[in-house]
C-alpha cells in the first residue's frame, strides 16, 4: 500500500482494494465483489442506523466496484443521505457517487436537487462548489429545470467568491449544452461578457468557455466580447513571462486563456473598429515573432504551450482569410514545422496547412512545400501523419501539379496502410478526374488504381470511369485498347474484368480492326476470366456477350454455344440462368434490327455530382470537404473539363453542364426528390444504370417507344407477344432484383425527403372514391381535371406489381418542373415498410397535348391497409399545381386465385373460426345486382370464384391467397345477395384478421 500522506480515513476501503488487487483470477475477483456487495447490502438494510463514516465507506466501496465495470443497483439512497450531511467529507463522497452513478430515477433526482438547493443557498463556498460540480457533472435536464435560473445570479453576484464563480460559469455551460432552451441569459448577458475583464485570471479562464459557447449560438448578443477579448489578449501577449505568476506555465503566460481568447475571436469576423483590429493584428504578429525567438526552456511543455497559442493564432488568421501578409507568414511558419523533429508538430503543421491550401492568398505558398509533403508521405513512420500528408497533397493539388501528385499517391498506394487505402483510392480517382486535361491520362490512372489496389476500388470508382468513357467519345477507343491490354495480365482484379467487360461490350468494335484484338480474341479474353469471377461479374459478362452478338455478328455462334452450355443455362444461380436463357432466346429470335435497337450503345449519362466525391464526403462527414471542394471546382471546373465538345450530341442529357464533376449542376428535376434528400440515392441511381446498363437500356427503349406511341407500335407488340413473361420478369428483375442499385429508388421511406419547394398537398377529398373504382380492375383513368389526365395500367404477379402511370397534358401549354412522389402515410407512423414502391423519375417537362409515362414497381412486403399516396407537382403557366391522390394499390391486388372443392372450402372455412378472423358486413346494393356483373367484379378482385360450393346457388364464394413477401394470407369470401331487399351480406375469413377487416371495407363499396 502506498504511503498516503493526507486525508485517508477509510481503512476498510483500502483493505478491500488490496483484496481485489490480490485476486488471482477474474472469478476470484467477482467472488470477492459479490461477498462485499452482500455485506454492504446487509449493512444498509440492517436495523442499526449506520453512522456517517460507515455509510461513506460503503458508498465508496460501491463506487469502486462500479468503476471496476460492475453494475451497481443500490446505495443511491445512502449516497443522497450523505449529501445532506454537514460533514464536508461525507458530502463530498455523496456527491461523487451521484456524479458518477446517477440514474434517471425521478424520485431520487428530486431528493438530490433538494440537497443541491440547500448547499447552493448555504453561502458556504466549499459546499456551493461541491453542489455546482455535481450539477456540471450530471447536467441532466431535471437539474437544468431546477437551477438554470439560479446559477447566472450566482455567477454575476458581486459578493460571490472567485472559486464559486468559476464553478458557476462552467456549470452553466454544461446546462446550456444539454438544455439550451432553459438557459436564458437575457439580462445577464452584458455582465457575463464583462467577466472577461475580471481581475482573477481563473475566473476569466472559466468564463471564456461559457462565453465562447454562447457566442457561437448568439453572436449578435455577445458581440461586445470581441474588443474585450482583444484587449485581454493583448495584455497577456505583451506581458513578461513572470507577470502572471502562477498563471504562467513553463515561461508561457496564460497559455490556456490565450488559446481560448483566440478561439473566441474565431466566432466573429475581423473587428470592424480599426483600433481594435490594429491591436489584434499586432498580437498575432507578436505571436508569430515569438515563434522565431529562441526557447526559454528546453522542456517540451514550454514549446507545446507556446505552439498551442501559435496554432490557434494561425487558425484565426485562416479564419479571417483577409491578411495576405499574415497568411503567408503562417504558411512559412508551418513550413518550418513540416521538418521539425517533433512528430506532433509535423502532424499539426500538415493538418493546419490543409486549411491554408484553400485560401487564395496562401494556396501558392502552400504549394512550394510539395516536395516536403511528398517526402512525408513516403517516410513518416506514423500512419496518422502519413494520412495528414495525403490529405494535404489532396488539398494542394491543382492543375499545375496534378500529374505529379497523382503519380506520387499512386506509387504510395502500393505500400499504403490498409486503413487508409480506400480513402486514398477515392482521392486519386477524384483528382484524376478533376484535373484531367486529356482523358487518356484519366483512364490510365484509374486502370492503374484498379491494378494496384483493386480491392479498395469501390464500385463508385469504376462506375465513374465508365460514365466518363461513355460520355466522351474521344476516349472510347483508347479506353478499349487499354482495358484490352490490361486484361492480358495473367491475374487481373475482378474490378478490371468488370470495367473490361463493360467497355469492350460497348466499344470493342473500335479496336476490332486490329487482328490482335479481333472480336473473337476479345471474347476469348473476357471469357477466360469468366470462371474466376463472382456472380455479379459473371452476370455483367453475360450482358457483354449479348452486346458482342450485336457488335460482331460473327461471334454469334460461339457465344450462343457458350450461353447454351449447361453451366450457363442450368446454372444454379437464378440470375445467371435467367440471363443466359433470355439472352440466348433474344439472340435467336429477334431480327438484327430489333437486336441493334435493343442493344444499342449506351446513351450518355446525365451529368451529375461525381458519385465518388459524394462518397468521400460521406466518409468524411458533412462539411469536411464541402466548402473548399465547391470553391475549387468553381475555380477549376468549367474550363478544365470543358465537356462542351460533346455538347451538340448530348441534347438528350437533362443538364448540359460543362464540368464532369457536375457539382454545380442541379440534378435533373425529375430526380430532384431523390437527390435533394440524400446524395446516396443519387449515387445509386447512377450505379444502377452502370451496373446493368444493357438491361436498363432495354427497358428504356421499350418504354420510350410505348410512351411515344400508344398503343404500341407493331414491332414492339410483336416483341411483347413473343416474350410476355420475359418482359415482365425481365424488366422486373432490373428494378427489383437489384435492390441495392435500383435505377432510381424512391423506397417509401424516402417519401420524407420530398421536393424542396412545397409540402405535398393533402389527398383530394375524392381520393378514396377514385381508389374504390380500381379495387376490381387494373386499368382505366384514375383522375382527370381540366389540365391533367392520369391513366393507369397495372399488372400483378405474386407479391410483385408493375404499374404504368400515364400523365396526359390536356392543355396546349407546357407543364414545367413536373415531379411525382410516392409516399405512404401509414408507414410513417409505424416505421415499418409495408410496400416497396420504386419509381423511375419522369421527364420534368410535359409539352402541351403530350403524354408521359412513369413506371412503378411495387413489392408487397406485408399486408397493409393504407394505399400509397401519389403526389404530383408541376407548374402550369407559373402557378404551382400540387395534388395528391391515392394510388390504387390495394391488398387484394396480390391475390392468387385458389381453386378448391366444396368439401375443402368448408373445412377451411371452419378452421378459420376465430371471431377476429371473420369480418362481416351487411349493406345495401349500390350497383346492379346482375349476376354477370357480380361475377366479373369478383374475378376482378383476384380470387377464384368457386362454383358448386355453396348449397345456395344464389350465393357466391371465392378463395384466394394473398402473397406478401413476409407471409401468405389465405382468404375465403362469401357474398350472399338478397335481391328482394336489395341487400348483401358479405363475410370474409382470412388467416390474418387485419386482412379480413380491410378486404371487407374495400368490398363493401363495390357492390
Amino acid at each position, binding site marked *: 500500500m502506498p504511503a498516503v*500522506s493526507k486525508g485517508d480515513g477509510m481503512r476498510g476501503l483500502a483493505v478491500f482494494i488490496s483484496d481485489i488487487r490480490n485476486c488471482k483470477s477474474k472469478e476470484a475477483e467477482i467472488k470477492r465483489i459479490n461477498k462485499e456487495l452482500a455485506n454492504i447490502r446487509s449493512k444498509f438494510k440492517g436495523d442499526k442506523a449506520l453512522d456517517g463514516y460507515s455509510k461513506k465507506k460503503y458508498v465508496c466501496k460501491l463506487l469502486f466496484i462500479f468503476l471496476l465495470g460492475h453494475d451497481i443497483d443500490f446505495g443511491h439512497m445512502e449516497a443522497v443521505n450523505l449529501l445532506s450531511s454537514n460533514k464536508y467529507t461525507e458530502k463530498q463522497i455523496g456527491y461523487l457517487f451521484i456524479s458518477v452513478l446517477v440514474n434517471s430515477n425521478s424520485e431520487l433526482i428530486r431528493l438530490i436537487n433538494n440537497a443541491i438547493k440547500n448547499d447552493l443557498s448555504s453561502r458556504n463556498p*466549499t459546499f456551493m462548489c461541491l453542489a455546482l460540480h455535481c450539477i456540471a457533472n450530471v447536467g441532466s435536464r431535471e437539474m437544468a429545470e431546477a437551477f438554470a435560473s439560479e446559477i447566472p445570479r450566482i455567477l454575476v453576484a458581486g459578493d460571490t467568491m472567485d472559486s464559486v464563480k468559476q464553478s458557476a460559469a462552467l456549470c452553466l455551460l454544461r446546462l446550456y449544452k444539454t438544455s439550451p432552451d432553459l438557459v436564458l441569459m437575457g439580462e445577464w448577458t452584458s455582465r457575463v461578457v464583462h467577466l472577461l475583464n475580471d481581475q482573477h485570471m481563473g475566473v476569466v479562464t472559466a468564463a471564456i468557455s461559457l462565453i465562447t459557447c454562447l457566442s457561437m449560438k448568439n453572436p449578435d448578443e455577445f458581440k461586445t466580447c470581441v474588443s474585450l477579448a482583444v484587449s485581454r489578449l493583448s495584455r497577456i501577449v505583451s506581458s513578461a513571462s513572470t507577470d502572471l505568476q502562477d498563471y504562467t506555465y513553463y515561461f508561457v503566460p496564460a497559455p490556456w486563456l490565450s488559446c481560448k481568447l483566440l478561439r473566441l475571436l474565431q466566432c466573429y469576423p475581423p473587428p470592424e473598429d480599426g483600433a481594435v483590429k490594429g491591436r489584434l493584428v499586432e498580437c498575432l504578429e507578436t505571436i508569430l515573432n515569438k515563434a522565431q525567438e529562441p526557447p526559454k526552456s528546453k522542456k517540451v*511543455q514550454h514549446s507545446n504551450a507556446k505552439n498551442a497559442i501559435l496554432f490557434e493564432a494561425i487558425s484565426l488568421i485562416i479564419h479571417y482569410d483577409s491578411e495576405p501578409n499574415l497568411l503567408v507568414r503562417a504558411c512559412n511558419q508551418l513550413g518550418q514545422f513540416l521538418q521539425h523533429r517533433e512528430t506532433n508538430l509535423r502532424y499539426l503543421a500538415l493538418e493546419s496547412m490543409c486549411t491554408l491550401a484553400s485560401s487564395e492568398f496562401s494556396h501558392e505558398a502552400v504549394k512550394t512545400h510539395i516536395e516536403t509533403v511528398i517526402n512525408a508521405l513516403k517516410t513518416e513512420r506514423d500512419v496518422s501523419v502519413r494520412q495528414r500528408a495525403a490529405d494535404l497533397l489532396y488539398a494542394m493539388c491543382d492543375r499545375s501539379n496534378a500529374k505529379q501528385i497523382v503519380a506520387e499517391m499512386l506509387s504510395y498506394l502500393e505500400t499504403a496502410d490498409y486503413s487508409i487505402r480506400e480513402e486514398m483510392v477515392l482521392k486519386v480517382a477524384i483528382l484524376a478526374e478533376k484535373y484531367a486535361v486529356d482523358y487518356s491520362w484519366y483512364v490510365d490512372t484509374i486502370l492503374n488504381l484498379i491494378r494496384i489496389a483493386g480491392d479498395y476500388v469501390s464500385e463508385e470508382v469504376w462506375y465513374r470511369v465508365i460514365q466518363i468513357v461513355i460520355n466522351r467519345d474521344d476516349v472510347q477507343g483508347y479506353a478499349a485498347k487499354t482495358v484490352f491490354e490490361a486484361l492480358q495480365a495473367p491475374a487481373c482484379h475482378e474490378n478490371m474484368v468488370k470495367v473490361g467487360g463493360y467497355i469492350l461490350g460497348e466499344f470493342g468494335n473500335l479496336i476490332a480492326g486490329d487482328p490482335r484484338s479481333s472480336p473473337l480474341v476479345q471474347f476469348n479474353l473476357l471469357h477466360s476470366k469468366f470462371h474466376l469471377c463472382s456472380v455479379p461479374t459473371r452476370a455483367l459478362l453475360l450482358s457483354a456477350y449479348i452486346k458482342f452478338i450485336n457488335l460482331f455478328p460473327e461471334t454469334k455462334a460461339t457465344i450462343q454455344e457458350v450461353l447454351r452450355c449447361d453451366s450457363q443455362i442450368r446454372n444454379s444461380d437464378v440470375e445467371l440462368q435467367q440471363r443466359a436463357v433470355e439472352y440466348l432466346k433474344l439472340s435467336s429470335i429477334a431480327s438484327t434490327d430489333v437486336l441493334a435497337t435493343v442493344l444499342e450503345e449506351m446513351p450518355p449519362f446525365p451529368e451529375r455530382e461525381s458519385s465518388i466525391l459524394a462518397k468521400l464526403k460521406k466518409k468524411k462527414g458533412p462539411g469536411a470537404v464541402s466548402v473548399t471542394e465547391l470553391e475549387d471546382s468553381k475555380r477549376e471546373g468549367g474550363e478544365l473539363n470543358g465537356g462542351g465538345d460533346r455538347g451538340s450530341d448530348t441534347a438528350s442529357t437533362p443538364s448540359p453542364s460543362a464540368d464532369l464533376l457536375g457539382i454545380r449542376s442541379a440534378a435533373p428535376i425529375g430526380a430532384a426528390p431523390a437527390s435533394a434528400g440524400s446524395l446516396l440515392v443519387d449515387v445509386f441511381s447512377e450505379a444502377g444504370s452502370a451496373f446493368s446498363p444493357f438491361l436498363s437500356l432495354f427497358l428504356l427503349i421499350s418504354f420510350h417507344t410505348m410512351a411515344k406511341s400508344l398503343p404500341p407500335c407493331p414491332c414492339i407488340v410483336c416483341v411483347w407477344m413473343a416474350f410476355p413473361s420475359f418482359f415482365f420478369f425481365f424488366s422486373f428483375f432490373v428494378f427489383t432484383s437489384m435492390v441495392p442499385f435500383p435505377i432510381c429508388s424512391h423506397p417509401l421511406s424516402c417519401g420524407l425527403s420530398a421536393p424542396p419547394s412545397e409540402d405535398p398537398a393533402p389527398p383530394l377529398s375524392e381520393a378514396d372514391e377514385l381508389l374504390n373504382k380500381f379495387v376490381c380492375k387494373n386499368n382505366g383513368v384514375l383522375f382527370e381535371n381540366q389540365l391533367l389526365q392520369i391513366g393507369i395500367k397495372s399488372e400483378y404477379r405474386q407479391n410483385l406489381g408493375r404499374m404504368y402511370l400515364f400523365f396526359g397534358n390536356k392543355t396546349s401549354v407546357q407543364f414545367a418542373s413536373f415531379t411525382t412522389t410516392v409516399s405512404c402515410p401509414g408507414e410513417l407512423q409505424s416505421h415499418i415498410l409495408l410496400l416497396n414502391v420504386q419509381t423511375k423519375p419522369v421527364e420534368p417537362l410535359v409539352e402541351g397535348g403530350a403524354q408521359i409515362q412513369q413506371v412503378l414497381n411495387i413489392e408487397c412486403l406485408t399486408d397493409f391497409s393504407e394505399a400509397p399516396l401519389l403526389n404530383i407537382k408541376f407548374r402550369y403557366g407559373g402557378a404551382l399545381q400540387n395534388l395528391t391522390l391515392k394510388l390504387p394499390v390495394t391488398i387484394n391486388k396480390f391475390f392468387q386465385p385458389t381453386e378448391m372443392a366444396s368439401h375443402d372450402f368448408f373445412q377451411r372455412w371452419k378452421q378459420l373460426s376465430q371471431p377476429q378472423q371473420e369480418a362481416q358486413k351487411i349493406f345495401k346494393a349500390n350497383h346492379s345486382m346482375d349476376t354477370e356483373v357480380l361475377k366479373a367484379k369478383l374475378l376482378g378482385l383476384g380470387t377464384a370464384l368457386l362454383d358448386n360450393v355453396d348449397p345456395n346457388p344464389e350465393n357466391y364464394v371465392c378463395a384466394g391467397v394473398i402473397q406478401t413477401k413476409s407471409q401468405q394470407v389465405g382468404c375465403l369470401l362469401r357474398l350472399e345477395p338478397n335481391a328482394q331487399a336489395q341487400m348483401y351480406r358479405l363475410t370474409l375469413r382470412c388467416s390474418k384478421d387485419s386482412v379480413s377487416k380491410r378486404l371487407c371495407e374495400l368490398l363493401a363499396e363495390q357492390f
Partner: protein
Amino acid sequence: MQFMLLFSRQGKLRLQKWYVPLSDKEKKKITRELVQTVLARKPKMCSFLEWRDLKIVYKRYASLYFCCAIEDQDNELITLEIIHRYVELLDKYFGSVCELDIIFNFEKAYFILDEFLLGGEAQETSKKNVLKAIEQADLLQESLVVFHSVCFFLILIFS
C-alpha cells in the same frame, strides 16, 4: 473535451470522466476500443489521432496512459498540457504520484480533476489555486480523521 480516460499499460481503466451523456454500454464500448487503439501505438508516434469524429490526445506517464477526446475545433497541444498539468497536480498532491496512489485514492483523483476541469473545460489552471482548494477540503477531513481515531480509541478502551 468529451471525456478523459486513465488506463494502465495492461489496459486496466483507472479513471474515467465523461463530459457528455452516454449510456454505460456506450462508455464501455468506447473505452474498450480506445484502450486497444492507443496501446497498439508505438512510443515515437504522434500523440494525436482521429477517432470517429473526435480527436484523441494521449500521453503516457510511466505505466499510465492519459487519454482525452476533444472536438474538432479544440487545440491538441493545449490538451496535451492539460494532461500534463493534471499529472503535476496529482504529483504534487501525492508526492511523486504512482499508479497505486490513483488506485487506492481514486476518489481523490476525481476531486482534484473536478477542481481543475469542470464540464470538460479548464476551471482553474493555477496549480496553487487548485491545490489550495483540495487542501482546504483535506483540512476538514483531517480533523475528522482525528475524531474517528479518537472514537476508535475510546471504543477500544471501553470494550
